[in-house]
């Protein structure tokens, strides 16, 4: 296939010099774009990866002057890291679970039930986008201060749930709406009960979208830093909150690099699954496009 598609334009180009110039110009634009984007987008992350595996990196060298793994053990056995990592994973798990329990039945109702004000309530979740995030967190923090929730786990869980609502409602709602109802009706026709139809027809059909929503919620909660910082201080220190102090205190560069790389893993895994969500415009749906 590859030889076929590349052979045709070459012959055309040989015949037509203006077309050749046009094609070259078009590909030139793409090549320049890819190179520039690679430097500015991948460059920063490449720097982190290099630093994580560097024993020594002196200035005029583009790559570390001495490679090595010696900082990994040193970093990963730091007391603050060993405390923060399980906390972050546990917190993200709890928040995702609670968010799913709270939002998934609601998303079914939004998609499939008919009641006055349905569209308005659904849009009101989208309207929460209209609040400047950090201003909102400060207002929540003041309310939590009065309720003695500052520096507590329930406080951090609650503020992180706020962040998950939009995603956990809109993606599943769209999925439930997109099901071909005739499949369910066919099952009802042959005498299946409603519960059975839901478990054996509806659920399998929406499962990919539900897993996407759950996965995205887990990852975004795992990385949620601002709410956890303002509510969790000083007792709850998650991995992203730890990063604030690592960056500000300017300790050994490799510490920050190794933690960043470990912290980045879930996102990298998500990146491999990402093609699917992006194709289906799932992400842009969450903004009302």
């Amino acid at each position, binding site marked *: 296939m590859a030889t076929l598609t590349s052979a045709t334009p070459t012959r055309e180009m040989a015949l037509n010099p203006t077309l050749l110039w046009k094609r070259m110009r078009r590909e030139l634009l793409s090549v320049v774009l890819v190179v520039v984007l690679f430097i500015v987008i991948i460059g920063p992350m490449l720097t982190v990866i290099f630093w994580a595996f560097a024993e020594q990196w002196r200035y005029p060298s*583009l790559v570390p002057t001495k490679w090595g793994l010696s900082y990994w053990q040193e970093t990963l056995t730091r007391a603050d890291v060993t405390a923060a990592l399980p906390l972050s994973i546990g917190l993200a798990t709890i928040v995702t679970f609670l968010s799913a329990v709270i939002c998934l039945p609601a998303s079914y109702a939004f998609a499939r039930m008919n009641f006055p004000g349905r569209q308005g309530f659904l849009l009101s979740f989208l309207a929460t986008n209209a609040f400047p995030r950090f201003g909102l967190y400060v207002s929540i923090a003041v309310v939590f201060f009065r309720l003695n929730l500052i520096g507590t786990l329930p406080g951090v869980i609650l503020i992180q749930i706020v962040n998950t609502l939009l995603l956990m409602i809109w993606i599943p709602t769209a999925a439930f709406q997109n099901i071909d109802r005739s499949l369910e009706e066919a099952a009802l026709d042959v005498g299946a009960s409603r519960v059975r139809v839901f478990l054996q027809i509806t659920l399998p059909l929406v499962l990919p979208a539900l897993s996407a929503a759950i996965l995205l919620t887990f990852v975004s909660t795992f990385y949620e830093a601002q709410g956890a910082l303002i509510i969790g201080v000083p007792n709850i220190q998650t991995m992203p909150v730890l990063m604030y102090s690592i960056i500000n205190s300017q300790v050994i560069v490799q510490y920050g690099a190794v933690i960043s790389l470990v912290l980045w893993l879930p996102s990298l895994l998500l990146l491999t699954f990402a093609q699917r969500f992006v194709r289906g415009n799932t992400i842009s749906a969450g903004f009302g496009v």
Partner: protein
Amino acid sequence: MTRPYNRKKIFMATARALTAQPAPPAAAKRRDLSGLFGYVLIAPPVAIMLLLIFYPAIEAVIETIFVSDAQTGQTTLSLQNYIAFFQDPILRANLTFTVLVTLATVFMLFVVGYPLAMYLRFSKSRLAGTVQVLTLFPLFVPGVILAFALIRFLGTHGMFDTLLGIVGISGYRTPYLQPQGIVIALVWEHIPFTVLVLTAGLRQVEDAVIESARDVGASGWQIFTRILLPLTTRSALIVFCLNVIGVFGAFTLPYLLGPAQPMMMGVSMQQAFNNYQDRIGALTQAVLTFLICAAVGVLYVRTITRPRER
């Protein structure tokens, strides 16, 4: 009320007619219950939204406009907190700085994002897929990691400095701890969203429309200003609103990459709340950011609730 086909109902009605059974009375009731049940199902997330988003926001407004007198203990309606804010030169500088950074960032996002979206919509190059992956990549880099990465990449003697040295450019001055640092980082962070939404908007413009314009002799510029821009207004408005609100309410990147003075509002609020225990001061700043973003917020809500023309 009648659906084009509802085989189950037809089937049941036929079966009842054939066996002469009375229709079950529950059928009519179930419809009403289903409506009620809907409210039960949506109650938990709606309650959380009301209690943790709308209530704190309203409470913030109320707490900052009712000032209690320390001596008499009487509460009066007053703009004292806001006057204090505007009388403080540091806080005033922070607000101006936030507005300027927001304008610069949103402007840069359009300058970078619109051409990228155009490229992704119209390019037939085999490299277009790679460009798309690269533009979406920042979605998968969380803020704190991005801050660390940019410090190491853009810092003095960082990788960017080294690359410039290789091509013979010297005298690089790092944007780290400068206002430009914040703008660069926020543009980096918001590029995927901007390009995603603008590309989605451009995809709704059909090829036939552009071809017919070209047939009647429209130049590339005319196609851009007369067809593409007007037809992507909705996407552009969503991008504009959410970027303004997102940048205005940013915290992590300005906090880690920006100068110590002036600060963006997010950083300023956090300092007031966590470091100075000045809750009313922090709330006053929060309400001011709400008010400034409110106009943009209204525009956003109107854009998403308006049915799309088609």
